[in-house]
């Protein structure tokens, strides 16, 4: 069984602020981190490695420093990885990114499709949740999104539980598949120090547009029909009413009740 996990490096948005005058991101002092939602997919893959000996390959697309994403996955136990990186990929929207990643995955699997491709549910910078589904289209492989749990039977069939707005859904199928994984799927493991030491020395394959045989007009800015017209911060929400009832719970409860009554939410 071969599992490919796609991960992304993103700016730590807890620290990102928007310059109110120019509406551009102020990235000063902002670290790059692994997209938090992408922590769970590799854990799911590593569990398949533990349970059925799957080979785990990690792929990320980004600038050279994004290689650290792959090293971290190797430190945790992934078998190999590749960095998809080239100036020609710059400015890619979700369509061009999906295309490029699907070409890279094909390349890494010798022209075939792997048994399973895993993604996080979305990235915290764009929040589109489109690249996983896009890759499934380009690979022509069935898609399951918002996976909460994944079981694999001995005969290679899978059974997954996905989370919907109004409930849960159980999906059964046969590989190959592309899945996007939720936080609930698995608590990520820590990388042992010895694992990091090996990962730090590992040579990481870099795939550019030639290596993945990409059509030049379908990658980077040229291959991106999405145009960002403007970026603006959402309106600042006013602070709520603060009820300080430290040391007097009864007073606090009464204040909350009065507040809800005033809003007409309780009688």
């Amino acid at each position: 069984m071969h599992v490919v996990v796609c991960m992304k490096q993103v700016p730590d948005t807890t620290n990102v602020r928007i310059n109110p005058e120019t509406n551009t991101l102020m990235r000063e002092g902002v670290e790059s981190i692994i997209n938090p939602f992408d922590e769970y997919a590799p854990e799911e893959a590593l569990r398949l490695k533990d349970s059925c000996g799957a080979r785990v390959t990690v792929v990320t697309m980004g600038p050279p420093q994004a290689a650290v994403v792959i090293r971290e996955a190797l430190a945790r136990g992934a078998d190999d990885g590749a960095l998809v990186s080239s100036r020609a990929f710059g400015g890619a929207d979700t369509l061009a990114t999906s295309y490029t990643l699907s070409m890279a995955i094909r390349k890494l699997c010798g022209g075939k499709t792997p048994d399973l491709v895993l993604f996080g549910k979305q990235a915290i910078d764009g929040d589109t949740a489109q690249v996983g589904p896009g890759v499934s289209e380009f690979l022509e492989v069935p898609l399951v999104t918002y996976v909460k749990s994944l079981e694999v039977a001995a005969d290679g069939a899978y059974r997954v539980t996905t989370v919907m707005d109004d409930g849960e859904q159980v999906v059964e199928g046969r590989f190959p598949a592309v899945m996007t994984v939720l936080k609930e799927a698995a608590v990520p493991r820590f990388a042992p120090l010895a694992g990091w030491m090996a990962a730090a020395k590992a040579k990481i394959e870099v795939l550019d547009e030639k290596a993945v045989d990409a059509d030049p007009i379908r990658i980077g800015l040229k291959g991106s029909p999405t145009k960002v017209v403007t970026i603006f911060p959402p309106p600042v929400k006013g602070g709520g009413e603060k009820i300080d009832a430290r040391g007097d719970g009864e007073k606090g409860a009464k204040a909350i009740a009065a507040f809800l009554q005033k809003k007409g939410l309780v009688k």
Partner: protein
Amino acid sequence: MIETDVLVVGAGPAGLATAIALRRKAADGRKPRVVVLDKGRSPGSHVLSGAIIDPSGFKGLLTDEEVAKMPVEAHVVKESFRSIMLPKLSVKIPWVPPMMSSKTFPVASLTKVTQYLAQIAAREGAEVYTGYAVTDLVEKDGRIVGAKTGEKGLDKNGRRKSNYLPSEEIRAKATVLAEGGCGILTERLIAEKGLQGVRSQTYAVGIKELIEVPAGTQTAGEVMHTFGYPADFTTYGGGFTYHVSETQVMVGYAYALDYRRPEIDPFRLFRRFKATAAVQRHIKGGKTVAYGAKVIPEGGFYSAPKPYYPGCLIVGDGAGLLDSLRIKGVHIALQSGVCAAEAILADDLASYETRLHATSGWREMKRVRNVRAPFSIAMPFGVMAAGLAWATFGRIPWFRLPGLGESDAAELEELKPGRLEREAANDVPSGPAMPDRLTDVFMSGTIHEEDQPCHLKIKDPARCEECERRFGSPCTRFCPAEVYRRDEGRLQIDFSNCLHCKTCRIKCPCGNIDWTFPQGGDGPRYTRM
């Protein structure tokens, strides 16, 4: 088991200087394997300082080109010293001894400088791994032979979670402790092996904010040092404003932890300091964007421990290497790293101490060795001692001047009625450049996995109740991160707020707080401190 030639505990300036010097000074083909571990999430995330850096520390460590490329936006162009008497009254000291001057020195974020040093160390082939707390030293036959990393993935009751990661052991021919001020392994080693200096270490807690100010209102490279208000006459306290760029000013306040009144709240003093006219001038229209705190070992020469034990060397703040007049230690930390590397490469660890004593940093510490103690009696004595040390090149007094007490924690008086209320009434109103404590804690970026054992262990809860009666639980005030609070008649510990500053370990009047390591990677996430 992992084997290496040298293990460095702590990726701050001292530890990284050790690593860089080890790799650079060794002959080709004989370069030692150097492993540097740090409990912070990334290099520099637990590093905090002013910082005006005395560039003498870079000599023999970095090339001129590397020094020029350092992430420094400003150099000191205008420097003043002020004595603050009252919120609206301060006087500029008309003349200061040249040895106090830091004109032309780089003024920068030490977090950023540390990140830069980590890049150089990695380029030189040292291995820097972050997110690993080193929790124990390994000793064999009277010699330190390595260390162990902390476990990860324990739940709040200490049970193993699904992601449990066991401790790993690293064996090293030499272990270098570069933990910073009040490092836990360092303090343990000093106590167990009797490595204390002539006097025990005395600390100050340093509290700092980065404030963004409107462009065109301030001058990059302008720095001000203050002493006096809001500290009283018997406590060593001082502040600074450093304009690290045109729009960013570092504002800090250090307050000696040998203070005696239990109602003291260093964070509130920091706020009162910021509210003085002298400081307001520098932060007008500003907004606080980052926060942090750390203890400073300011005992100086007489408090420096013996920095050597078989198999193990102590560098930087952990070895008490600080010029206690200028409150500068980065340059001595860097020098100590170079000395440690030379001693290791010469295969003569014991020679570290003599090498250290030959550095310019150590000579400075010796010259001002009598400056700190008189400050704990009364400020004017300290000022006189400083003047004398300068005028006589440290020759007078030739003997060790006494200070008050030998331990910071034992100093507290009992709490007098009405004092707490009076302190609270002195607090200043909040604003964009005057955040409350929890807003500041948020801006430190500190974060701890909540489902793990509390790393601040109370040795005997009954003593906390006695402390509440006698001193009014001073931990609820001296902690700059609001970790400790009294709730429903008992002490609550919000360990997730912790900034790893170690004030509680030092100042708890009952010595009742055991500071253990939280999960590696947790703690503050400084990016611009």
